[in-house]
Protein backbone atom coordinates (compact mmCIF):
# COMPACT_ATOMS: atom_id res chain seq x y z
CA UNK A 1 0.00 0.00 0.00
CA UNK A 2 1.42 3.43 -0.88
CA UNK A 3 2.53 5.45 2.10
CA UNK A 4 -0.20 8.09 1.80
CA UNK A 5 -2.99 5.50 2.06
CA UNK A 6 -1.69 4.35 5.42
CA UNK A 7 -3.16 7.53 6.86
CA UNK A 8 -6.91 7.50 7.38
CA UNK A 9 -7.20 11.25 6.67
CA UNK A 10 -5.68 10.68 3.22
CA UNK A 11 -8.07 7.80 2.56
CA UNK A 12 -10.98 10.08 3.44
CA UNK A 13 -9.49 12.88 1.33
CA UNK A 14 -9.30 10.58 -1.70
CA UNK A 15 -12.88 9.30 -1.24
CA UNK A 16 -14.27 12.82 -0.86
CA UNK A 17 -12.10 14.27 -3.66
CA UNK A 18 -13.04 11.55 -6.16
CA UNK A 19 -16.76 11.72 -5.32
CA UNK A 20 -16.86 15.51 -5.54
CA UNK A 21 -14.93 15.47 -8.83
CA UNK A 22 -17.61 13.19 -10.29
CA UNK A 23 -20.47 15.43 -9.18
CA UNK A 24 -18.79 18.75 -10.01
CA UNK A 25 -17.76 17.60 -13.49
CA UNK A 26 -21.33 16.45 -14.33
CA UNK A 27 -22.84 19.71 -13.11
CA UNK A 28 -20.06 21.69 -14.82
CA UNK A 29 -20.97 20.38 -18.28
CA UNK A 30 -24.49 21.81 -17.92
CA UNK A 31 -23.32 25.03 -16.23
CA UNK A 32 -20.90 25.79 -19.07
CA UNK A 33 -23.44 25.07 -21.81
CA UNK A 34 -26.09 27.14 -20.09
CA UNK A 35 -23.49 29.94 -20.39
CA UNK A 36 -23.32 30.36 -16.63
CA UNK A 37 -19.64 29.59 -16.12
CA UNK A 38 -19.35 32.20 -13.40
CA UNK A 39 -22.09 30.63 -11.28
CA UNK A 40 -19.46 28.59 -9.43
CA UNK A 41 -17.66 31.77 -8.40
CA UNK A 42 -20.89 33.50 -7.41
CA UNK A 43 -22.12 30.58 -5.31
CA UNK A 44 -18.78 29.77 -3.71
CA UNK A 45 -18.28 33.39 -2.66
CA UNK A 46 -21.82 33.51 -1.35
CA UNK A 47 -21.09 30.33 0.62
CA UNK A 48 -18.21 32.19 2.30
CA UNK A 49 -20.63 34.78 3.63
CA UNK A 50 -22.71 31.88 5.03
CA UNK A 51 -19.55 30.44 6.62
CA UNK A 52 -18.86 33.82 8.25
CA UNK A 53 -22.46 34.00 9.56
CA UNK A 54 -22.13 30.44 10.93
CA UNK A 55 -18.84 31.25 12.68
CA UNK A 56 -20.22 34.53 14.04
CA UNK A 57 -23.43 33.07 15.44
CA UNK A 58 -21.92 29.80 16.58
CA UNK A 59 -23.62 27.22 14.33
CA UNK A 60 -22.07 24.77 11.85
CA UNK A 61 -20.44 26.89 9.11
CA UNK A 62 -21.31 24.22 6.51
CA UNK A 63 -24.98 24.73 7.24
CA UNK A 64 -24.39 28.49 6.93
CA UNK A 65 -22.69 27.90 3.57
CA UNK A 66 -25.56 25.70 2.35
CA UNK A 67 -28.15 28.31 3.38
CA UNK A 68 -26.24 31.20 1.78
CA UNK A 69 -25.70 29.20 -1.43
CA UNK A 70 -29.38 28.29 -1.72
CA UNK A 71 -30.36 31.91 -1.14
CA UNK A 72 -27.81 33.11 -3.72
CA UNK A 73 -29.02 30.58 -6.30
CA UNK A 74 -32.61 31.73 -5.86
CA UNK A 75 -31.38 35.35 -6.24
CA UNK A 76 -29.68 34.39 -9.53
CA UNK A 77 -32.88 32.80 -10.85
CA UNK A 78 -34.95 35.83 -9.77
CA UNK A 79 -32.56 38.33 -11.41
CA UNK A 80 -32.39 36.16 -14.55
CA UNK A 81 -36.15 36.38 -14.87
CA UNK A 82 -36.07 40.13 -14.31
CA UNK A 83 -33.27 40.69 -16.86
CA UNK A 84 -33.82 37.97 -19.48
CA UNK A 85 -31.66 39.78 -22.06
CA UNK A 86 -28.68 40.05 -19.68
CA UNK A 87 -28.66 36.70 -17.91
CA UNK A 88 -24.92 36.76 -17.18
CA UNK A 89 -25.49 39.94 -15.15
CA UNK A 90 -27.54 37.91 -12.65
CA UNK A 91 -24.45 35.84 -11.83
CA UNK A 92 -22.16 38.90 -11.74
CA UNK A 93 -24.48 40.81 -9.39
CA UNK A 94 -24.80 37.83 -7.02
CA UNK A 95 -21.03 37.36 -7.16
CA UNK A 96 -20.38 40.94 -6.04
CA UNK A 97 -22.96 40.69 -3.24
CA UNK A 98 -21.37 37.39 -2.10
CA UNK A 99 -17.82 38.79 -2.09
CA UNK A 100 -18.96 42.00 -0.41
CA UNK A 101 -20.83 40.21 2.36
CA UNK A 102 -18.04 37.67 2.92
CA UNK A 103 -15.46 40.49 3.07
CA UNK A 104 -17.43 42.56 5.58
CA UNK A 105 -18.52 39.64 7.78
CA UNK A 106 -15.08 38.01 7.87
CA UNK A 107 -13.82 41.10 9.68
CA UNK A 108 -15.98 40.14 12.66
CA UNK A 109 -14.88 36.48 12.77
CA UNK A 110 -12.55 35.97 15.73
CA UNK A 111 -10.83 32.79 14.56
CA UNK A 112 -9.48 33.72 11.13
CA UNK A 113 -7.97 30.26 10.48
CA UNK A 114 -11.46 28.71 10.54
CA UNK A 115 -12.58 31.13 7.88
CA UNK A 116 -9.43 30.63 5.78
CA UNK A 117 -9.96 26.86 5.76
CA UNK A 118 -13.12 27.53 3.74
CA UNK A 119 -11.25 29.80 1.32
CA UNK A 120 -8.75 27.15 0.24
CA UNK A 121 -10.42 24.04 1.61
CA UNK A 122 -9.13 21.52 4.10
CA UNK A 123 -9.59 18.22 2.35
CA UNK A 124 -7.16 16.55 4.75
CA UNK A 125 -9.16 17.56 7.83
CA UNK A 126 -12.52 16.03 6.99
CA UNK A 127 -14.78 15.00 9.85
CA UNK A 128 -16.94 11.83 9.65
CA UNK A 129 -20.05 14.05 9.42
CA UNK A 130 -18.61 15.84 6.37
CA UNK A 131 -17.65 12.50 4.79
CA UNK A 132 -21.23 11.15 5.06
CA UNK A 133 -22.60 14.49 3.87
CA UNK A 134 -20.43 14.33 0.75
CA UNK A 135 -21.33 10.68 0.04
CA UNK A 136 -25.07 11.41 0.37
CA UNK A 137 -24.84 14.57 -1.73
CA UNK A 138 -22.85 12.98 -4.54
CA UNK A 139 -25.23 10.01 -4.72
CA UNK A 140 -28.18 12.41 -5.02
CA UNK A 141 -26.43 14.58 -7.63
CA UNK A 142 -25.45 11.60 -9.78
CA UNK A 143 -28.90 10.01 -9.53
CA UNK A 144 -30.71 13.24 -10.44
CA UNK A 145 -28.21 13.95 -13.21
CA UNK A 146 -28.80 10.50 -14.69
CA UNK A 147 -32.59 10.78 -14.42
CA UNK A 148 -32.70 14.32 -15.82
CA UNK A 149 -29.89 13.90 -18.36
CA UNK A 150 -32.21 14.18 -21.36
CA UNK A 151 -33.96 17.26 -19.97
CA UNK A 152 -30.72 18.98 -18.94
CA UNK A 153 -29.19 18.30 -22.36
CA UNK A 154 -32.21 19.83 -24.12
CA UNK A 155 -32.29 22.90 -21.85
CA UNK A 156 -28.54 23.44 -22.43
CA UNK A 157 -29.14 23.25 -26.18
CA UNK A 158 -32.13 25.62 -26.23
CA UNK A 159 -34.43 26.57 -23.36
CA UNK A 160 -37.04 27.85 -25.80
CA UNK A 161 -37.16 24.65 -27.88
CA UNK A 162 -37.14 22.53 -24.73
CA UNK A 163 -40.13 24.42 -23.34
CA UNK A 164 -42.03 23.94 -26.62
CA UNK A 165 -41.28 20.21 -26.53
CA UNK A 166 -42.94 19.98 -23.14
CA UNK A 167 -39.84 19.93 -20.92
CA UNK A 168 -40.75 21.50 -17.55
CA UNK A 169 -37.92 24.01 -17.95
CA UNK A 170 -38.60 26.04 -14.80
CA UNK A 171 -38.78 22.97 -12.56
CA UNK A 172 -35.66 21.40 -14.06
CA UNK A 173 -33.76 24.72 -13.80
CA UNK A 174 -34.84 25.05 -10.18
CA UNK A 175 -33.76 21.51 -9.25
CA UNK A 176 -30.46 21.98 -11.08
CA UNK A 177 -29.74 25.30 -9.34
CA UNK A 178 -30.46 23.79 -5.92
CA UNK A 179 -28.18 20.82 -6.67
CA UNK A 180 -25.39 23.15 -7.82
CA UNK A 181 -25.80 25.29 -4.72
CA UNK A 182 -25.65 22.25 -2.43
CA UNK A 183 -22.61 20.83 -4.19
CA UNK A 184 -20.73 24.13 -4.18
CA UNK A 185 -21.42 24.81 -0.53
CA UNK A 186 -20.34 21.35 0.61
CA UNK A 187 -17.33 21.28 -1.73
CA UNK A 188 -16.25 24.66 -0.31
CA UNK A 189 -15.24 22.88 2.89
CA UNK A 190 -13.07 20.34 1.05
CA UNK A 191 -11.55 21.76 -2.14
CA UNK A 192 -12.19 25.35 -1.01
CA UNK A 193 -14.46 28.13 -2.21
CA UNK A 194 -11.81 29.76 -4.37
CA UNK A 195 -11.08 26.65 -6.45
CA UNK A 196 -14.61 25.31 -6.95
CA UNK A 197 -15.32 27.63 -9.84
CA UNK A 198 -12.24 26.43 -11.68
CA UNK A 199 -13.10 22.76 -11.05
CA UNK A 200 -16.64 23.43 -12.29
CA UNK A 201 -15.49 24.98 -15.55
CA UNK A 202 -11.90 24.10 -16.50
CA UNK A 203 -12.26 20.28 -16.86
CA UNK A 204 -15.31 20.92 -19.10
CA UNK A 205 -13.34 23.42 -21.20
CA UNK A 206 -10.59 20.80 -21.57
CA UNK A 207 -13.13 18.08 -22.47
CA UNK A 208 -14.68 20.29 -25.16
CA UNK A 209 -11.34 20.38 -26.96
CA UNK A 210 -11.26 16.65 -27.61
CA UNK A 211 -14.79 15.27 -27.14
CA UNK A 212 -16.81 14.20 -30.18
CA UNK A 213 -20.27 14.09 -28.60
CA UNK A 214 -22.13 15.35 -25.54
CA UNK A 215 -21.73 12.03 -23.76
CA UNK A 216 -17.97 11.96 -24.36
CA UNK A 217 -17.79 15.61 -23.18
CA UNK A 218 -19.19 14.42 -19.85
CA UNK A 219 -16.82 11.46 -19.83
CA UNK A 220 -13.73 13.61 -20.50
CA UNK A 221 -14.84 16.27 -17.99
CA UNK A 222 -15.06 13.59 -15.29
CA UNK A 223 -11.71 12.20 -16.42
CA UNK A 224 -9.94 15.58 -16.23
CA UNK A 225 -11.55 16.43 -12.89
CA UNK A 226 -10.50 13.05 -11.47
CA UNK A 227 -6.93 13.32 -12.80
CA UNK A 228 -6.60 16.84 -11.34
CA UNK A 229 -7.95 15.77 -7.95
CA UNK A 230 -6.00 12.51 -7.61
CA UNK A 231 -2.73 14.07 -8.81
CA UNK A 232 -3.36 17.19 -6.73
CA UNK A 233 -3.85 15.18 -3.54
CA UNK A 234 -0.83 12.98 -4.28
CA UNK A 235 1.44 15.96 -4.95
CA UNK A 236 0.15 17.79 -1.89
CA UNK A 237 1.02 14.77 0.27
CA UNK A 238 4.51 14.10 -1.11
CA UNK A 239 5.66 17.66 -1.87
CA UNK A 240 3.67 19.45 0.80
CA UNK A 241 1.64 21.71 -1.49
CA UNK A 242 -1.80 23.14 -0.67
CA UNK A 243 -4.26 20.56 -2.09
CA UNK A 244 -6.98 23.01 -3.27
CA UNK A 245 -4.63 25.26 -5.22
CA UNK A 246 -2.73 22.28 -6.66
CA UNK A 247 -5.98 20.73 -7.93
CA UNK A 248 -7.01 24.01 -9.60
CA UNK A 249 -3.59 24.44 -11.23
CA UNK A 250 -3.57 20.84 -12.47
CA UNK A 251 -7.01 21.23 -14.03
CA UNK A 252 -5.67 24.27 -15.92
CA UNK A 253 -2.72 22.15 -17.03
CA UNK A 254 -5.20 19.54 -18.33
CA UNK A 255 -6.88 22.28 -20.35
CA UNK A 256 -3.62 23.34 -22.04
CA UNK A 257 -2.76 19.69 -22.70
CA UNK A 258 -6.16 19.22 -24.34
CA UNK A 259 -5.67 22.33 -26.49
CA UNK A 260 -2.29 21.01 -27.67
CA UNK A 261 -3.83 17.57 -28.32
CA UNK A 262 -6.59 19.17 -30.37
CA UNK A 263 -4.21 21.19 -32.53
CA UNK A 264 -2.00 18.14 -33.08
CA UNK A 265 -5.01 16.06 -34.03
CA UNK A 266 -6.31 18.62 -36.52
CA UNK A 267 -2.82 18.99 -38.01
CA UNK A 268 -2.36 15.29 -38.62
CA UNK A 269 -5.97 14.42 -39.33
CA UNK A 270 -6.56 13.58 -42.95
CA UNK A 271 -10.24 12.95 -42.41
CA UNK A 272 -12.31 14.71 -45.04
CA UNK A 273 -16.01 15.48 -44.87
CA UNK A 274 -18.25 13.98 -47.53
CA UNK A 275 -19.62 16.50 -49.99
CA UNK A 276 -23.00 17.97 -49.13
CA UNK A 277 -25.88 16.17 -50.77
CA UNK A 278 -27.37 17.72 -53.86
CA UNK A 279 -30.87 19.17 -53.40
CA UNK A 280 -32.38 16.53 -55.72
CA UNK A 281 -30.85 13.75 -53.62
CA UNK A 282 -32.31 15.04 -50.39
CA UNK A 283 -35.73 13.42 -50.59
CA UNK A 284 -36.28 9.75 -51.32
Amino acid at each position, binding site marked *: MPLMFQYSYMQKAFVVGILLSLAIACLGVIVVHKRMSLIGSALSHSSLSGVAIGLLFGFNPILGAVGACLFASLCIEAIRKKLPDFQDLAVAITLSIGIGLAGVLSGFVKNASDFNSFLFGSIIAITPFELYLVIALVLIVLLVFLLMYK*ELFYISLSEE*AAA*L*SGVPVRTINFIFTILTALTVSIAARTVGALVISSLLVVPVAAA*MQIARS*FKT*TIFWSIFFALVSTVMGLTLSFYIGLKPGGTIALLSSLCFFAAVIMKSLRSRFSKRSLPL*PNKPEDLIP
Partner: protein
Amino acid sequence: MKPIEYAVEVENIHFAYNEKPILSNITFRIQDGDFAAIIGDNGSGKSTLIKIILGLLPPDSGIIKIQGQNVTGRSDFSAVGYVPQNSADSISRFPATAEEIVLSSLYKKIGPFRFPGKKHRQMAEDALFQVGLTDYKKRMPTEMSGGQRQRLMLARVLANQPRILILDEPTVGIDNDAVNQLLTVLHQINITNKVTIVMVTHDIAKVASYSNRVLCLSEKHFHESDLPSGTIVHAHPLQNDHRYEHIHCANCPQSHDSESCAACNQDHKSHGESERGHL
Protein backbone atom coordinates in the same frame (compact mmCIF):
# COMPACT_ATOMS: atom_id res chain seq x y z
CA MET B 1 -69.90 21.61 -46.73
CA LYS B 2 -66.81 20.73 -44.70
CA PRO B 3 -65.45 23.81 -42.88
CA ILE B 4 -62.02 25.02 -43.96
CA GLU B 5 -59.36 23.85 -41.54
CA TYR B 6 -56.89 26.44 -40.47
CA ALA B 7 -53.45 25.57 -39.22
CA VAL B 8 -52.99 29.01 -37.66
CA GLU B 9 -55.63 31.64 -36.88
CA VAL B 10 -54.66 35.06 -35.58
CA GLU B 11 -57.39 37.51 -34.62
CA ASN B 12 -56.93 41.14 -33.61
CA ILE B 13 -53.57 40.71 -31.98
CA HIS B 14 -52.15 43.70 -30.13
CA PHE B 15 -48.71 43.70 -28.55
CA ALA B 16 -46.69 46.55 -27.07
CA TYR B 17 -43.17 46.46 -25.63
CA ASN B 18 -42.35 49.15 -23.05
CA GLU B 19 -45.60 50.86 -24.07
CA LYS B 20 -44.42 51.09 -27.69
CA PRO B 21 -46.91 49.30 -29.94
CA ILE B 22 -45.15 46.58 -31.94
CA LEU B 23 -48.16 44.78 -33.36
CA SER B 24 -51.63 46.24 -33.66
CA ASN B 25 -54.77 44.67 -34.95
CA ILE B 26 -53.15 41.74 -36.70
CA THR B 27 -55.59 39.29 -38.24
CA PHE B 28 -54.88 36.48 -40.68
CA ARG B 29 -55.41 32.78 -41.22
CA ILE B 30 -53.12 30.16 -42.61
CA GLN B 31 -54.78 27.11 -44.09
CA ASP B 32 -53.69 23.57 -43.52
CA GLY B 33 -51.01 22.71 -46.07
CA ASP B 34 -50.07 26.33 -46.87
CA PHE B 35 -46.50 27.46 -47.41
CA ALA B 36 -46.76 30.96 -45.98
CA ALA B 37 -44.00 33.55 -45.97
CA ILE B 38 -44.17 36.40 -43.47
CA ILE B 39 -42.23 39.40 -44.68
CA GLY B 40 -41.67 42.88 -43.33
CA ASP B 41 -39.09 45.50 -42.44
CA ASN B 42 -36.61 45.10 -39.61
CA GLY B 43 -38.41 45.83 -36.38
CA SER B 44 -41.86 45.34 -37.86
CA GLY B 45 -42.53 42.59 -35.33
CA LYS B 46 -42.15 39.43 -37.41
CA SER B 47 -40.26 37.43 -34.77
CA THR B 48 -42.53 38.83 -32.03
CA LEU B 49 -45.53 37.62 -33.99
CA ILE B 50 -44.01 34.14 -34.26
CA LYS B 51 -43.34 34.02 -30.52
CA ILE B 52 -46.92 35.09 -29.81
CA ILE B 53 -48.25 32.39 -32.14
CA LEU B 54 -46.16 29.83 -30.26
CA GLY B 55 -47.37 31.06 -26.88
CA LEU B 56 -43.85 32.11 -25.87
CA LEU B 57 -45.04 35.72 -25.50
CA PRO B 58 -48.51 36.64 -24.27
CA PRO B 59 -50.26 39.21 -26.48
CA ASP B 60 -51.91 42.26 -24.87
CA SER B 61 -55.13 41.22 -26.56
CA GLY B 62 -56.36 38.98 -29.33
CA ILE B 63 -56.84 35.31 -30.02
CA ILE B 64 -54.41 32.79 -31.52
CA LYS B 65 -55.47 29.32 -32.48
CA ILE B 66 -53.31 26.47 -33.68
CA GLN B 67 -55.24 23.70 -35.41
CA GLY B 68 -58.43 25.20 -34.02
CA GLN B 69 -57.23 25.20 -30.40
CA ASN B 70 -56.53 28.32 -28.40
CA VAL B 71 -52.81 28.81 -27.71
CA THR B 72 -53.33 30.51 -24.33
CA GLY B 73 -52.71 28.02 -21.58
CA ARG B 74 -51.79 25.30 -24.05
CA SER B 75 -48.79 23.24 -23.00
CA ASP B 76 -48.64 20.66 -25.77
CA PHE B 77 -46.97 22.04 -28.88
CA SER B 78 -45.90 18.67 -30.22
CA ALA B 79 -47.78 19.31 -33.47
CA VAL B 80 -45.65 22.39 -34.05
CA GLY B 81 -41.99 22.40 -35.05
CA TYR B 82 -40.17 25.68 -34.39
CA VAL B 83 -36.79 26.65 -35.75
CA PRO B 84 -35.83 29.91 -33.97
CA GLN B 85 -33.80 32.75 -35.45
CA ASN B 86 -30.02 32.13 -35.36
CA SER B 87 -30.59 28.63 -34.00
CA ALA B 88 -27.98 27.21 -36.36
CA ASP B 89 -25.43 29.72 -35.02
CA SER B 90 -26.34 29.01 -31.42
CA ILE B 91 -25.46 25.33 -31.79
CA SER B 92 -22.35 25.88 -33.88
CA ARG B 93 -20.03 25.25 -30.90
CA PHE B 94 -22.27 22.85 -29.00
CA PRO B 95 -20.40 19.58 -28.39
CA ALA B 96 -23.05 17.08 -29.45
CA THR B 97 -23.51 14.82 -32.45
CA ALA B 98 -26.25 15.47 -35.01
CA GLU B 99 -28.03 12.36 -33.71
CA GLU B 100 -27.95 13.60 -30.10
CA ILE B 101 -29.32 16.99 -31.16
CA VAL B 102 -32.15 15.46 -33.20
CA LEU B 103 -33.02 12.98 -30.44
CA SER B 104 -33.46 15.87 -28.00
CA SER B 105 -36.69 16.94 -29.72
CA LEU B 106 -38.25 13.53 -29.09
CA TYR B 107 -38.59 14.35 -25.41
CA LYS B 108 -42.37 13.80 -25.31
CA LYS B 109 -42.16 10.56 -27.24
CA ILE B 110 -39.36 9.15 -25.08
CA GLY B 111 -41.03 10.27 -21.86
CA PRO B 112 -39.55 11.78 -18.70
CA PHE B 113 -36.66 10.01 -16.93
CA ARG B 114 -36.25 7.52 -19.78
CA PHE B 115 -33.57 7.04 -22.41
CA PRO B 116 -34.13 6.88 -26.18
CA GLY B 117 -34.66 3.41 -27.61
CA LYS B 118 -34.17 1.82 -31.01
CA LYS B 119 -37.44 3.26 -32.29
CA HIS B 120 -36.40 6.82 -31.36
CA ARG B 121 -32.98 6.43 -32.95
CA GLN B 122 -34.69 5.30 -36.14
CA MET B 123 -36.93 8.38 -36.05
CA ALA B 124 -33.85 10.60 -35.67
CA GLU B 125 -32.15 8.80 -38.53
CA ASP B 126 -35.21 9.24 -40.74
CA ALA B 127 -35.27 12.98 -40.00
CA LEU B 128 -31.57 13.30 -40.85
CA PHE B 129 -32.22 11.37 -44.06
CA GLN B 130 -35.06 13.76 -44.95
CA VAL B 131 -32.70 16.72 -44.85
CA GLY B 132 -29.83 14.88 -46.51
CA LEU B 133 -27.59 14.58 -43.46
CA THR B 134 -27.47 10.80 -43.00
CA ASP B 135 -23.68 10.81 -43.35
CA TYR B 136 -23.42 13.43 -40.61
CA LYS B 137 -25.17 11.41 -37.89
CA LYS B 138 -22.07 11.15 -35.74
CA ARG B 139 -20.66 14.56 -36.66
CA MET B 140 -20.81 17.65 -34.49
CA PRO B 141 -22.07 21.07 -35.65
CA THR B 142 -18.47 22.34 -35.63
CA GLU B 143 -17.81 19.99 -38.54
CA MET B 144 -20.71 21.30 -40.62
CA SER B 145 -21.28 24.30 -42.86
CA GLY B 146 -23.86 26.96 -41.98
CA GLY B 147 -26.36 25.46 -44.41
CA GLN B 148 -25.90 21.97 -43.01
CA ARG B 149 -26.36 23.28 -39.48
CA GLN B 150 -29.60 24.93 -40.57
CA ARG B 151 -30.79 21.64 -42.07
CA LEU B 152 -29.79 19.92 -38.83
CA MET B 153 -32.05 22.30 -36.91
CA LEU B 154 -34.79 21.43 -39.37
CA ALA B 155 -34.17 17.69 -38.84
CA ARG B 156 -34.48 18.24 -35.09
CA VAL B 157 -38.04 19.47 -35.45
CA LEU B 158 -38.92 17.04 -38.26
CA ALA B 159 -38.10 14.04 -36.07
CA ASN B 160 -41.18 14.92 -34.05
CA GLN B 161 -43.32 14.66 -37.20
CA PRO B 162 -44.95 18.09 -36.79
CA ARG B 163 -48.05 19.18 -38.70
CA ILE B 164 -46.94 22.81 -38.69
CA LEU B 165 -43.39 24.07 -39.19
CA ILE B 166 -42.56 27.61 -38.07
CA LEU B 167 -39.18 28.97 -39.14
CA ASP B 168 -37.74 32.36 -38.20
CA GLU B 169 -35.33 33.68 -40.82
CA PRO B 170 -33.80 30.29 -41.66
CA THR B 171 -31.99 31.59 -44.76
CA VAL B 172 -29.97 34.29 -43.00
CA GLY B 173 -26.20 33.86 -43.14
CA ILE B 174 -26.08 30.90 -45.51
CA ASP B 175 -24.96 30.90 -49.15
CA ASN B 176 -27.19 30.61 -52.21
CA ASP B 177 -26.72 26.87 -52.73
CA ALA B 178 -27.49 26.18 -49.07
CA VAL B 179 -30.62 28.36 -49.27
CA ASN B 180 -31.78 26.42 -52.34
CA GLN B 181 -31.13 23.09 -50.61
CA LEU B 182 -33.05 24.18 -47.53
CA LEU B 183 -35.99 25.49 -49.56
CA THR B 184 -36.06 22.30 -51.65
CA VAL B 185 -36.33 20.23 -48.48
CA LEU B 186 -39.08 22.48 -47.11
CA HIS B 187 -40.95 22.37 -50.41
CA GLN B 188 -40.84 18.56 -50.44
CA ILE B 189 -42.03 18.36 -46.84
CA ASN B 190 -44.85 20.75 -47.68
CA ILE B 191 -45.92 18.83 -50.80
CA THR B 192 -45.22 15.23 -49.77
CA ASN B 193 -46.05 15.26 -46.05
CA LYS B 194 -48.66 18.07 -46.27
CA VAL B 195 -46.92 19.94 -43.49
CA THR B 196 -48.00 23.59 -43.13
CA ILE B 197 -45.00 25.91 -43.32
CA VAL B 198 -44.86 29.41 -41.86
CA MET B 199 -41.58 31.14 -42.57
CA VAL B 200 -40.40 34.59 -41.55
CA THR B 201 -37.98 35.75 -44.19
CA HIS B 202 -36.16 38.63 -45.76
CA ASP B 203 -35.24 36.51 -48.73
CA ILE B 204 -38.59 36.89 -50.46
CA ALA B 205 -36.97 36.68 -53.91
CA LYS B 206 -36.18 33.00 -53.27
CA VAL B 207 -38.97 32.01 -50.90
CA ALA B 208 -41.74 33.48 -53.09
CA SER B 209 -41.25 30.79 -55.69
CA TYR B 210 -42.08 28.10 -53.10
CA SER B 211 -44.77 29.81 -51.04
CA ASN B 212 -48.45 30.07 -51.83
CA ARG B 213 -49.09 32.89 -49.33
CA VAL B 214 -47.10 36.03 -48.65
CA LEU B 215 -48.11 37.92 -45.53
CA CYS B 216 -46.73 41.43 -45.36
CA LEU B 217 -46.15 42.94 -41.94
CA SER B 218 -44.65 46.31 -42.46
CA GLU B 219 -44.71 49.93 -41.50
CA LYS B 220 -44.12 50.73 -45.14
CA HIS B 221 -46.34 49.51 -47.89
CA PHE B 222 -45.16 46.61 -49.92
CA HIS B 223 -43.74 47.49 -53.28
CA GLU B 224 -44.10 45.38 -56.34
CA SER B 225 -40.40 45.70 -56.98
CA ASP B 226 -39.79 43.75 -53.75
CA LEU B 227 -41.68 40.80 -55.14
CA PRO B 228 -40.08 39.45 -58.29
CA SER B 229 -43.32 38.85 -60.13
CA GLY B 230 -41.62 36.77 -62.77
CA THR B 231 -40.44 34.24 -60.19
CA ILE B 232 -43.87 33.97 -58.61
CA VAL B 233 -45.83 33.62 -61.78
CA HIS B 234 -43.63 30.96 -63.28
CA ALA B 235 -43.06 28.89 -60.16
CA HIS B 236 -46.57 28.47 -58.80
CA PRO B 237 -49.42 29.65 -60.95
CA LEU B 238 -52.09 29.38 -58.25
CA GLN B 239 -55.65 29.58 -59.35
CA ASN B 240 -57.85 32.38 -58.01
CA ASP B 241 -55.83 32.67 -54.86
CA HIS B 242 -54.53 35.79 -53.19
CA ARG B 243 -50.99 34.96 -52.28
CA TYR B 244 -50.24 38.43 -51.13
CA GLU B 245 -52.01 39.70 -48.05
CA HIS B 246 -51.31 42.95 -46.31
CA ILE B 247 -51.83 42.19 -42.63
CA HIS B 248 -50.64 45.44 -41.14
CA CYS B 249 -49.85 48.92 -42.23
CA ALA B 250 -49.37 52.20 -40.43
CA ASN B 251 -52.05 53.94 -42.49
CA CYS B 252 -54.78 51.48 -41.65
CA PRO B 253 -54.19 50.29 -38.09
CA GLN B 254 -57.86 49.51 -37.56
CA SER B 255 -58.38 47.24 -40.51
CA HIS B 256 -56.55 44.42 -42.20
CA ASP B 257 -59.17 43.53 -44.65
CA SER B 258 -57.41 44.81 -47.71
CA GLU B 259 -60.64 44.60 -49.71
CA SER B 260 -62.38 47.16 -47.51
CA CYS B 261 -59.37 49.24 -46.49
CA ALA B 262 -58.98 52.36 -48.53
CA ALA B 263 -55.29 52.76 -47.76
CA CYS B 264 -54.48 49.20 -48.75
CA ASN B 265 -56.66 49.33 -51.81
CA GLN B 266 -54.91 52.43 -52.95
CA ASP B 267 -51.60 50.78 -52.35
CA HIS B 268 -52.62 47.61 -54.14
CA LYS B 269 -53.95 49.59 -57.03
CA SER B 270 -50.67 51.34 -57.47
CA HIS B 271 -48.37 48.43 -56.59
CA GLY B 272 -50.00 45.15 -56.00
CA GLU B 273 -52.73 44.62 -58.55
CA SER B 274 -50.44 42.97 -60.99
CA GLU B 275 -49.56 40.38 -58.29
CA ARG B 276 -53.21 39.59 -57.61
CA GLY B 277 -53.87 39.45 -61.31
CA HIS B 278 -51.15 36.92 -61.86
CA LEU B 279 -52.11 34.79 -58.93
